[in-house]
């Protein structure tokens, strides 16, 4: 076991493998930066190139690319308020708010460093989990997955802001998100729901146009209205120097970073929860780390912890999501499904063998993720200061580019005009929500968890009848969701407990 662990590292540093990884990193870097050009699609497009490679080279190439995408995706989210990847939207809330305060450098430094910590923890969790992976994953059936989704939804209470009124709005926004998740052909009876005769809506609303709409469009409008640069007319001293402050912030709040990394890894391990979820759970945790009401009110307005949490989680989940793929031959996400195709191409059968016969290869994958992230972060740190200066460019110059990338990004999800209409519609909704003081995070959380909750609830009920509610893990998760739900009220005594019934 230990031998394989070390051999895996040496394998990664063989020059041809290393070169392939560098190539992957280079590609992944740009894929992450550019919104819309997603990691999943790029993986699919790169598959034909691995025919001539050895398995170790191929995975160094593919994973090298895949594992830096979330890292550089954070950069776009922070600088422009456009999610660089579907998995980096939560970074926008506080990251972009910081950029607007002239602290882009600090936010970037924190995002990169927490990404690195997240990736390391995710990878080592993967390595440590290998002996217990199979029983762990198998103990989570449909009822448990449903309850995990409920735990996620319970985080709405933390994402909503303070007070009964804000909570009520949060819940309503969450329900609206769940409603949007219903669009499309339902998987139980094949009925078309809310498709209004549009073929485009059959497969439901796509995450990317929705995210870009809700987050980027309001920022673009805001930038146009203000008529200044992103960082506004604020003093500029902090801008560039902030990078190291951000790096240090990661260690000031190290406990939070580690907790969010672990949460991300766990969500990654659970097949079917998907990368969109981890960041929001992490953001919810970050908000809960606030000690006073004043601290809590600062979230969404540029609290560094709101950057650290999602930054760590969206990287650590990658280590986790490899687990079901290699241990069962069952992919945990769509990018892992494509990676599974790579396994076949290379003549390797994922499954128990990967934890035994091919253990060196498995560990080389772990190491690839670690090394790729270290390289990316170290290189990025050198020119983050220059990137931060982008926030000083006049809005009128910047807006055409941001708009262009937002529209292209949305369009790439289906290559259909409908993508653009969804983008505009959700952009309008997002703008309206901001103007009227409604939180956007619960909406997105409801949207990403809606399908998961519905499907697993249905499967649980039809398979086990009502008895599934008494499974031990389900009971534990029910307790956990209650804690998550009421946590904000337990912390801040003296606040009215109005509107507390989320479920």
């Amino acid at each position, binding site marked *: 076991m230990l031998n394989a662990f070390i051999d895996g590292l040496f394998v990664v540093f063989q020059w041809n493998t290393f070169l392939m990884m560098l190539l992957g990193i280079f590609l992944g870097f740009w894929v992450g930066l550019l919104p819309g050009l997603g990691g999943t699609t790029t993986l699919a497009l790169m598959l034909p190139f691995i025919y001539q490679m050895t398995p170790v080279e191929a995975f160094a190439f593919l994973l090298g690319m895949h594992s830096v995408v979330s890292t550089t995706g954070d950069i776009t989210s922070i600088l422009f308020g456009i999610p660089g990847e579907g998995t980096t939207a939560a970074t926008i809330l506080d990251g972009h708010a910081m950029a607007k305060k002239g602290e882009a450098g600090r936010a970037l430094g924190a995002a990169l460093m927490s990404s690195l910590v997240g990736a390391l923890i995710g990878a080592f969790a993967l390595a440590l989990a290998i002996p217990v992976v199979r029983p762990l994953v198998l103990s989570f059936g449909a009822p448990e997955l449903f309850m995990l989704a409920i735990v996620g939804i319970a985080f709405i209470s933390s994402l909503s802001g303070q007070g009964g009124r804000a909570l009520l709005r949060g819940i309503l926004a969450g329900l609206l998100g769940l409603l949007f998740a219903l669009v499309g052909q339902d998987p139980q009876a094949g009925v078309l729901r809310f498709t209004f005769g549009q073929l485009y809506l059959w497969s439901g609303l796509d995450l990317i146009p929705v995210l870009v709409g809700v987050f980027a469009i309001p920022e673009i409008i805001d930038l146009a209205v203000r008529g200044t640069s992103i960082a506004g007319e604020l003093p500029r001293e902090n801008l560039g120097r902030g990078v190291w402050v951000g790096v240090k912030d990661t260690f000031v709040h190290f406990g939070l970073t580690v907790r969010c990394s672990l949460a991300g890894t766990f969500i990654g391990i659970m097949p079917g929860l998907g990368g969109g979820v981890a960041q929001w759970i992490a953001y919810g945790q970050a908000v809960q780390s606030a000690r006073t009401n004043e601290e809590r009110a600062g979230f969404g307005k540029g609290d560094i912890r709101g950057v650290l949490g999602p930054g760590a989680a969206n990287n650590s989940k990658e280590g986790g999501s490899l687990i079901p793929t290699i241990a069962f*031959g069952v992919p945990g996400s769509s990018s892992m499904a494509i990676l599974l195709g790579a396994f076949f191409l290379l003549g390797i*059968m994922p499954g128990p063998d990967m934890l035994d016969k091919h253990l060196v290869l498995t560990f080389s994958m772990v190491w690839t993720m670690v090394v790729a992230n270290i390289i990316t972060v170290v290189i990025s740190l050198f020119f983050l200061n220059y990137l931060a200066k982008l926030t000083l460019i006049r809005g009128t110059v910047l807006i055409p580019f941001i708009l262009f990338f937002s529209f292209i990004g949305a369009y790439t999800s289906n290559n259909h005009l409908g993508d653009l209409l969804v983008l505009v519609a959700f952009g309008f909704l997002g703008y309206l929500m901001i103007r009227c003081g409604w939180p956007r995070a619960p909406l997105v959380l409801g949207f990403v968890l809606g399908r998961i909750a519905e499907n697993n609830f249905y499967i649980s009920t039809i398979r086990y009848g009502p008895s599934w509610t008494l499974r031990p893990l389900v009971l534990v998760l029910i307790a956990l969701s209650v804690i998550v739900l009421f946590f904000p009220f337990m912390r801040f005594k003296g606040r009215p407990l109005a509107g507390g019934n989320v479920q």
Partner: protein
Amino acid sequence: MKMLMILFISLVLFFANAPSYGASLYEGKTITIIVGYKPGGGYDRYARLIGKHLPKYIPGKPGVIIQNMPGASSVIAANHVFSIAKPDGLTIGTFNNATVIAQLIKVEGVRFDLTKFAWLGSAASDAVILSVRSDLPYRTADDLRKAKQFVIGTTGPGSSTHDFPAILGEFGGFDFKLVPGYSSSADVMLALERKEVDGRAGSYDSIKPFIDRGLVRPVIRNRTSAPGIEKLPVDENLATTQQGKLIMAVNAVPTQIYRPYVAPPATAKDALKILRDAFANVLKDKDLLAEAEKGKMTIDYVPPDDALKVVAEVLGQPPDVVKVLAKHIKFGE
């Protein structure tokens, strides 16, 4: 002078060597293969593999690009190739093999007629099987008949994971309990592994790795066979009524044209001939076959006339039969 002579002769030889027939048709052009799904899925991987080797077999060596047009389980792509793409021989479409069912049961939004496409054929066929968890005592169809409330996980109506066992249960005298709602067939595999479900139906290609690994064993197949499962009982022979047999036969049609390739209706004759020949030849290409083998993709050429015949047969069913079919066969992912 001598140099010029050599240059002249070599130029003549160069052009004389190029095939004259059809070369001008595709010379410097680009063929687009429209795929009805996002990148990364089975349809996309087949299209990319074929697209990579296709130029070799077309005079003039045109470029080939893949365009993904996902949505509505390929109906959007099929509609596009049917009525928007130009019939100039530069567009090829490949989409959900079950679009024939969509047309048959008149799914809302279908604006194509499969019998009017200029068919190139199908690149593969794929058996649908019902597999059972290996730790259960059911080895044969008869064993399975004795099972009570045999739980089968599915991804929902309209997919072979659902419709095949649903029809088999209804018309074959099996007591199946279907649990739809898994988000992918991989999720059903995991549910099998944690013993949440007892069996899974679906494409033999996709279940095969798990058979090899010993997680499940195949028990029943449809009329499309594949090496290794020839001897399994065919669902149609297990049907207890004539009507059931017919429904099973119709439901099996998409598996016979598993990876259909078509050009827009009324595609120019000379171009179509070139495309048809190229399609037939590329599927015999050694490099393509080697890559397909590596990627665990079955290649099994079905000529255009045969494909069209199967499609026409299904679509020619009388309305009262269609009514019954629509009750049992759905269209979806």
